[in-house]
């Protein structure tokens, strides 16, 4: 399929959206480089903001997972199964991340910076890998008879991952390498892992962009925008020195924007 016929059908607005999605975060982070923009939020205010963002993103992720799984049941597409599993993992693990955030009550485990970061990394790494597999593996159709079993396996895998994460946070946090040191900031391990996540998401984003160039599908466009915003969210999470500072806030704002884009992509699917 020639590039030019596809490009002609692509809305000029789409190109504008994509350009803005890249430029705006760059401008924001560049502005933050000026010392005057560095602020640290009141922990209580941040907690409320954080809870709102995470609840919203968990609900959207769960909705996308549900629709994907329903689609898989009818269609058997491996792509959509992996996509659904990625979002289910995000929903489950981000819930643990929210509960583990410093300042949250001790419900199942002692909240703390490292606990929250480990849960965050479980969610991001598993989500990024599954999204990458979804975007890049060739299409394959599962026979109808085993689709339900495969779905149950996917849900079981996410449940296992969540239990492992919760166990690690509760019982192993003292022996696991630290991700954040109070007074010093993020460790190289944490930054390195976020780099890997960002790189994985970048490959996924490029794959979605290529898909969009061929199909001009609006859902794919919004998911491309969502993944791009997610990458910039990860950049925020590589830069914060304090869990309540402007980089962390911005990271969460870009995450919220990413999930708004995913939600729009779901709603606009026609």
């Amino acid at each position, binding site marked *: 399929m020639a590039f030019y016929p596809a490009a002609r059908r692509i809305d000029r607005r789409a190109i504008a959206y994509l350009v803005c999605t890249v430029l705006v975060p760059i401008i924001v982070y560049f502005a933050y480089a000026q010392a005057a923009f560095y602020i640290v939020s009141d922990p209580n205010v941040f907690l409320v903001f954080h809870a709102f963002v995470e609840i919203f993103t968990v609900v959207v992720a769960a909705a996308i997972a549900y629709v*994907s799984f329903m689609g898989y049941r*009818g269609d058997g597409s491996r792509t959509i199964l992996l996509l659904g599993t990625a979002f289910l993992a995000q929903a489950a693990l981000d819930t643990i991340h929210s509960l583990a955030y410093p300042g949250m009550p001790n419900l199942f485990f002692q909240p703390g910076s490292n606990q929250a970061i480990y849960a965050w990394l479980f969610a991001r790494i598993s989500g990024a890998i599954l999204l990458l597999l979804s975007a890049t593996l060739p*299409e394959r159709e599962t026979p109808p008879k085993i689709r339900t079993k495969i779905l149950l396996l996917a849900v079981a895998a996410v449940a296992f991952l969540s239990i492992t994460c919760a166990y690690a946070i509760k019982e192993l946090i003292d022996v696991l390498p630290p991700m954040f040191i109070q007074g010093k900031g993020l460790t190289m391990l944490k930054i390195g892992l976020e780099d890997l996540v960002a790189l994985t998401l970048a490959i996924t984003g490029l794959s979605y962009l290529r898909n969009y160039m061929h199909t001009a599908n609006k859902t794919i466009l919004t998911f491309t925008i969502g993944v791009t915003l997610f990458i910039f969210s990860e950049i925020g999470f590589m830069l914060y020195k304090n869990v309540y500072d402007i980089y962390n806030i911005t990271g969460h704002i870009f995450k919220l924007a990413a999930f708004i884009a995913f939600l729009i992509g779901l709603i606009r699917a026609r």
Partner: protein
Amino acid sequence: MRVSTGISALDAMLHGGLMRGDVTLVVGSAGTGKTTLALQYLVNGATKFNENGLYITFEQMPAQIYRDAASFGWDIRKLEAEGKLRVVCTSPPVLVQFVEERNPIDAIISEMSAKRIVIDSISNLESFIPASELRGELYRLVNHLKMKELTSIFTAESQEVFGDHLVVTGVGLSFLVDCIILLRIVEIQSSLKKALTVLKIRGSDHDKQLREFEITPQGIKIAAAFAQYEGVLTGAPRRSTTEAFTEAFKKGKKI
């Protein structure tokens, strides 16, 4: 007791087939396959279930019916020679002529011990019978066929080919019949497809799904339901969110 149409998927939609002695209305616009369905019902009755049938046509000449049936491998002339099926070409005033409870087609029904009858199409009666008398005449005809214990199919034309305005018949026939099967042409992704659904069946439950069907060289073949679409009966369905979302991500799709 059920009467099999011989189309297994349709029988499944009807939860076993038509009810014996019932009148079924098959309604659809031009080209939807009403005549094919009705003919297939009679041919199957004659060849598979030992139930002789009578096909009443008003506009289509028997010669055309023989020719069209032959394209599906149905030898109507042979079935007529064997006394299993008869094609009668008449006009509405003849069909609704009742004298001392006798009708011109009664002799044919008795002669061939017909168990099934098709009237194609009942809409022709509207041109010959005044509107004020039409419902009464139809009521008389329906009752006459029921008294003869015939399992009947009436075809009826729907004027609407597309659009969200669905009128089954303009004369209240839908209230007189026991079962209604609706055939519709729908547009899905720039192609025309045929859809079939059972709107009602008195005294029985039925499949409420809208299913795609095709007219194959062997006759009508009913396929899967339009589960992934909404608004199919409007003629221009939308894909459900699930289907559209799944399709967006599936690989191999190009403009």
